[in-house]
């Protein structure tokens, strides 16, 4: 009897690493095709300008140029679609190549295709565009002000949508009876995702059979194919193959259908040669969807003991110049529905206005709406603690939703799955040694040192998402996931998953799942992702959904495989299928391990069906599509200890601690890695990142100006976990990818506010907290 050691839940080393550590990954820019041409885009330098004329004559004469196309050439092509339509949403045209006007700096107006990169770059400089510069608005808060330049015909005041959720009347009543109301302005600044690999595509049209193959840096190749083929270019889906090979990070920015791959896919058909485009980092800053960019007025009402009685939120959210693929969902359904947080809040109302500005379009960036919600709640509860002179840990404990295993209905539509918020927080306080810290802080304060601690107890909606629910809310897509399991005659297993790994390690975690379920060695399992030619339709990876949704789809197929295997084994063992159990890699008669057939034999029999059940099809391969019945809700508690340099305002992170509950853990090492990376991004938002526009020009347009955390800015993280399995999926997995990003920003900001409390500071409106900003805050403080 073969026993294979159980591997799910263990920190198994990653199977994908060997190729990455030896430089043998295949990223899009590594793919080589003979005859490839190179594309450079001519882009608007202006934030808002009418296109009067595009003169390509001189550029066309440049040696090595193969073709130049403008918007006028791209006939029969539709707008890049918006995949989430809110009621009343103004949907302006969004042509891949603008031909009437450019609406943000970086808007592409022409594609120059040449034999070499150099020639394309040189020729692009010769394209002469005659612009009529128009006034531009880039300030989110000012987008709908009277007199602001109108960006789109369909949106007279630059308003893309207004939306609300919750009970305004109940909130009004609650506020009237409240002992204390805290009102704050909160700016959640615009960010640039900046995965280390810039976006890239290679589009190749095969004249002989009319097939288009597109390699693209995508988190969801099927979505790319569907949107581009069906909605924009009008090509039948089955003639398009989209391959997202190794992709160097995404964080949301590689979800969306962009102009560039669409234009290249169109162009390759025109010139009948492959067309490659690889973004420069400058282009990435200018054209990758940006994140966040909310301006909020928040009010939290408390009773005299510090219990929250109501929350009122008014947010203006930037959409940018156009509606990116999922943009309207981010500041609405992914944000306001999380405003219940981990607290009991009897009355909540949120009103959101989406606005157009002459800036890069804004869409999901790691956390996508949930960081904005968590930041608001965590800032407000600590502001409330300051106002009520309560300890920030105590006020949270007073307000946590008590432990529950199966359902908690929030005031904002969502029903949480399972939670034990107090337990995670208690563990965190233990790790911090909280009372001791407050003692140390007091001593430090006596010496004039500015030492502070900040907490963040967060929750997020992951395992995105139940299709019918999101459909009723305006999503133009389902959010299920596919998983096909193919057992080969000789017993090896190939899994085709609609999930995509661009750093998440699915080749490892999914094979751990398969290995345990089938009792086979991990080495005999192959995970295939990223190719629409091989994989059934899937929605891809974002929203911390791959473990929960992708994993469950695979599990469902594995169970179907085992059920079929039982029928085959029953036949071989001359027993009834209901008497067969699958354990330790073999099918056996229940209670009789000696009466068994190994998995391998069943597999071979399926494909050589000589001694075989009547009426049962040969083969051993199953496909499943899993549509989750609910979101899943990871949660946790983070703490950050900072010291502020009085002279310079520099914030130093002294300690960073995290307790996260992602439900069951498939691979602790990988989950911890997700937390670490997210923390760095959350810290980045708090301390050094920020996409800044000045009169329509992106001032922070390179890595020389836009500061991302480097190794010397961060400490070793102290992490632990609690495990509260979700009842939503059979794996009990909630999702882990976005935890750190959501939790860290408020933890850091709260720590700085706490550090500056002796100066009378109880709130900071804006981020990042560069040293200069902190110093200015200190200088204008009351004490």
């Amino acid at each position, binding site marked *: 009897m073969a026993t294979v050691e159980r591997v799910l839940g263990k920190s198994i080393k990653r199977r994908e690493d060997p190729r990455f550590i030896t430089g043998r990954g295949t990223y899009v820019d590594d793919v080589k095709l003979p005859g490839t041409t190179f594309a450079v885009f001519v882009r608007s330098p202006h934030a808002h300008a009418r296109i009067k004329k595009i003169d390509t004559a001189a550029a066309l004469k440049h040696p090595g140029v193969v073709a130049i196309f403008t918007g006028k050439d791209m006939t029969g092509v539709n707008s890049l679609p918006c995949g989430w339509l809110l009621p009343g949403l103004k949907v302006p045209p969004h042509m891949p190549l603008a031909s009437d006007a450019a609406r943000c700096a970086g808007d592409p107006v022409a594609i120059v295709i040449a034999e070499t*990169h*150099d020639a394309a*770059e*040189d020729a692009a*400089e010769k394209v002469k565009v005659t612009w009529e510069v128009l006034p531009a608005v880039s300030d989110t808060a000012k987008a709908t002000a009277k007199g602001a330049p109108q960006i789109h015909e369909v949106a007279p005041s630059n308003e893309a949508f207004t939306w609300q959720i919750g009970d305004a009347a109940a909130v009004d009543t609650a506020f009237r009876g409240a002992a204390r109301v805290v009102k704050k302005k909160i700016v959640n600044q615009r960010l640039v995702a900046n995965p280390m690999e810039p976006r890239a595509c290679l589009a190749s049209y095969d004249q002989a059979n009319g097939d288009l193959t597109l390699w693209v840096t995508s988190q969801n190749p099927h979505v790319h194919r569907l949107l581009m083929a069906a909605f924009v270019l009008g090509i039948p889906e089955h003639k398009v193959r989209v391959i997202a090979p190794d992709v160097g990070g995404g964080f949301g920015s590689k979800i969306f259908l962009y102009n560039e791959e669409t234009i290249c896919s169109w162009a390759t058909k025109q010139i009948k040669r492959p067309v490659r485009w690889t973004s*420069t980092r*400058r282009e990435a800053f200018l054209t990758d969807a940006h994140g966040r960019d909310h301006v909020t007025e928040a009010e939290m009402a408390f009773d005299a003991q510090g219990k929250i009685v109501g929350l009122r939120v008014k947010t203006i959210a930037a959409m940018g110049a156009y509606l990116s693929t999922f943009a309207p969902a981010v500041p609405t359904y992914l944000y306001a529905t999380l405003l219940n947080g981990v607290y009991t809040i009897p009355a909540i109302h949120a009103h959101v206005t989406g606005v157009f500005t002459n800036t890069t379009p804004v869409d999901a960036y790691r956390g996508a709406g949930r960081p904005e919600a968590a930041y608001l709640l965590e800032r407000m509860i600590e502001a409330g603690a300051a106002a009520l002179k309560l300890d920030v840990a105590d006020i949270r404990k007073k307000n946590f939703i008590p432990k529950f295993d199966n359902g908690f209905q929030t005031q904002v539509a969502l029903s949480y799955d399972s939670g034990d918020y107090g337990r995670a927080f208690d563990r965190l306080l233990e790790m911090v040694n909280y009372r001791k810290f407050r003692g140390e802080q007091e001593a430090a304060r006596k010496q004039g040192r500015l030492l502070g601690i900040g907490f963040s107890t967060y929750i997020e909606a992951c395992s995105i998402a139940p299709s019918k629910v999101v459909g009723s809310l305006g999503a133009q897509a389902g959010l299920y996931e596919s998983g096909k399991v193919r057992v080969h005659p000789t017993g090896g297993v190939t899994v085709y998953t609609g999930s995509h790994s661009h750093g998440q390690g699915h080749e490892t975690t999914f094979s751990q799942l398969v290995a345990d379920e089938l009792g086979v060695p991990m080495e005999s399992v192959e995970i295939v992702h990223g190719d629409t030619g091989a994989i059934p339709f899937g929605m891809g990876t974002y929203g911390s959904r791959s473990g929960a949704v992708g994993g469950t789809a695979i599990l469902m197929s594995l169970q179907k495989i085992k059920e079929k295997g039982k029928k085959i084994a029953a036949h071989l063992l001359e027993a009834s299928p209901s008497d067969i159990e699958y354990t330790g890699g073999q099918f056996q008669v229940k209670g009789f391990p000696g009466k068994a057939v190994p998995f391998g034999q069943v597999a071979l029999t399926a494909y050589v069906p000589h001694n075989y059940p009547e009426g049962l099809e040969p083969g051993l391969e199953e496909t499943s599509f899993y549509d989750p019945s609910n979101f899943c809700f990871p949660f946790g508690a983070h703490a950050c200890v900072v010291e502020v340099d009085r*002279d*310079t*305002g*520099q914030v130093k992170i002294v300690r960073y601690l995290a307790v996260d509950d992602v439900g069951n853990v498939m691979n602790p090492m990988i989950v911890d890695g997700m937390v670490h990376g997210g923390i760095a991004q959350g810290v980045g938002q708090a*301390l*050094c990142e920020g996409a*800044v526009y000045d009169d329509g020009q992106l*001032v*922070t347009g390179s*890595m*020389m*100006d*836009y*500061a*991302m955390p480097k190794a010397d*800015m961060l400490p070793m993280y102290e992490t632990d976990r609690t495990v509260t399995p979700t009842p939503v999926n059979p794996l009990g997995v909630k999702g882990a990818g976005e935890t750190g990003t959501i939790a860290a920003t408020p933890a850091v900001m709260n720590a700085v506010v706490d550090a500056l409390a002796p100066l009378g500071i109880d709130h900071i409106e804006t981020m990042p907290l*560069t*040293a*200069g900003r902190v*110093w*200015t805050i200190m200088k204008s403080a009351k004490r």
Partner: protein
Amino acid sequence: MYPAAFEYHAPTSVKDALKLLGKLKDSKLLAGGHSLIPMMKLRLAQPKHVIDLGKVKGLTGIKEDKGAFVVGAMTTHWDVESSKALKAKVPVVSETAAVIGDPAVRNKGTIGGSLAHADPAADMPATAIALGFEFVCEGAKGKRTVKADDWFKGLMETAIKANEVLTTIRIPMLPAGSGACYMKFPHPASRFAIVGVCAAVTIDKKTGNCTKVGVGVTGAGTKAVRAKGVEAALLGKKLDAATIEAAAQKAADGVDVQADLQGSVEYKAHLCRVFARRALEAALKRAQG
């Protein structure tokens, strides 16, 4: 990301480099390339000719010569950072080199290239001024030496002439009883100096007075400058926390402070004062140590 086309020349002697400089219109000298090449990649610089000094003999090396170090202009920041001789006798120069850019940049970027480029936020200019580096330029008509006070003329503008090559930098050793320190407040993204101050002091053993002081300030303005006010407030005095604090108040004088996303004019001027104080305190400690 793709520079404009140019013609490449790799002379093997200063004489040949000078000939090329004289002959070729619209040319740039290429030293370590870590200021020029990034500019060319963004097409902010599009010289028709690039004259690579990488193969020119005799432009590298650190030698001692009569109370000074003679450093070849093409000596890399890493060689300056790791030089045992410099660390022993003028450690502040190695200390300054050690915070330029990052380790990979320091392996190729050169002391001469950086000082000739004179980025307003570069580190070494502050130390060059504080210590009184001397710049030896060679032209068709021969060599001339320019003092640090005459070297930094304006925004990325130095005293070097169009047809000259900076060949050598003379770094005077400090007299006995001296201490120097370079301190910077780095830009979180680029790691250039938002503010950088180099302070060098010499304390007379008998009197305890400061007999020599040099303070250079970089980063905040359009060029690195000598903090004359600070120096005047310290020269001849006994240095302690109070005198240093008072002198440091003048650190932003003469600096045309530029505001940007990292801070207001007020903040950056304040940083000049803070880092002047810190650099002076450290320099004093080293002088006394």
